[in-house]
């Protein structure tokens, strides 16, 4: 069923997701993206540069959070603009020896932030948190709605 602008109202929740993150996920993201900064996979290196431990790539968090929007709209290419600020690192514990146990859990909620009938778009505002604290701020995806 196609979503239309008239179905939407500001403040309406459109999606919600829980992203479980392991060290393996960060290694996969490093390989897929080409970002091999060791702060995302090496504990001693991360601590050596005054981080609390291995942290997720900000771009991993940004990239996975938007699935709440694409799952809702049904077409990933409907996201015509997507931005965020990275405010707090997502620390990923080493759970390698405990299969199925996440090293961090990221919670995502998307609500309609604005509706632009002239351009036939809606802005979805994402709340993205880990450990009860926001990790992305001003995370906004503009979605074209035909």
């Amino acid at each position, binding site marked *: 069923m196609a979503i239309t602008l008239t179905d939407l109202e500001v403040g309406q929740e459109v999606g919600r997701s829980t*992203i479980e993150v392991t060290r393996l*996920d960060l290694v*996969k*993201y490093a*390989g*897929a*993206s*080409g*970002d091999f900064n060791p702060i995302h996979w090496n504990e001693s290196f991360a601590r050596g*540069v005054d981080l609390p431990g291995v942290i997720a790539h*900000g*771009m*991993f968090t*940004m*990239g*996975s959070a*938007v*699935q709440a929007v*694409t*799952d809702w709209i*049904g*077409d*990933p*290419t409907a*996201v*015509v*603009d*997507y*931005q*965020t*600020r*990275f405010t707090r690192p997502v620390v990923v514990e080493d759970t390698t020896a405990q299969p199925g146990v996440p090293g961090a859990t990221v919670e995502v909620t998307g609500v309609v932030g604005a509706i632009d009938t002239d351009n036939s778009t809606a802005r979805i505002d994402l709340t993205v948190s880990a450990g009860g604290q926001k990790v992305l701020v*001003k995370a906004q*995806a503009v979605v074209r709605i035909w």
Partner: protein
Amino acid sequence: MTINPDLQGRSYPATAVYTVGREKIREFAHAVKATHPAHFDAEAAAALGHRDVVAPPTFAIIVAQQADAQLINDPEAGIDFTRVVHADQRFTHHRPIVAGDELVAELHVDQVRAMGGGAMITTRAEISTVEGEKTATTTSSILVRGEDQ
């Protein structure tokens, strides 16, 4: 090491051609835990009107970071990569990125602001196909931490 304030307004020429591979889109989609069939299955993408599998919304970071590397690795810039923190990121898509696209990115240094002993640097990568079709604009700010930050 201090950031060269003359960086502002500088541009770096288009990067080497990046050919968007079908398997790379699938790999990247898996890596960001995307499940939409249009990333994996050409027929599902075709049903949405696309020539081949489509990239997830943040895929362009691969191309943008190759363009950024020109600045980071520029000895005149004075950027210590171990002190770089990603502060913000934006993607504006002019048209979807699809497997088979041949992309180039031109990098612009839009702003350099001193912050404490470090600097906030905002760059913009204009990504287009080799045929000249505008594909995406990505904007990124990095904070280069000073010695005491």
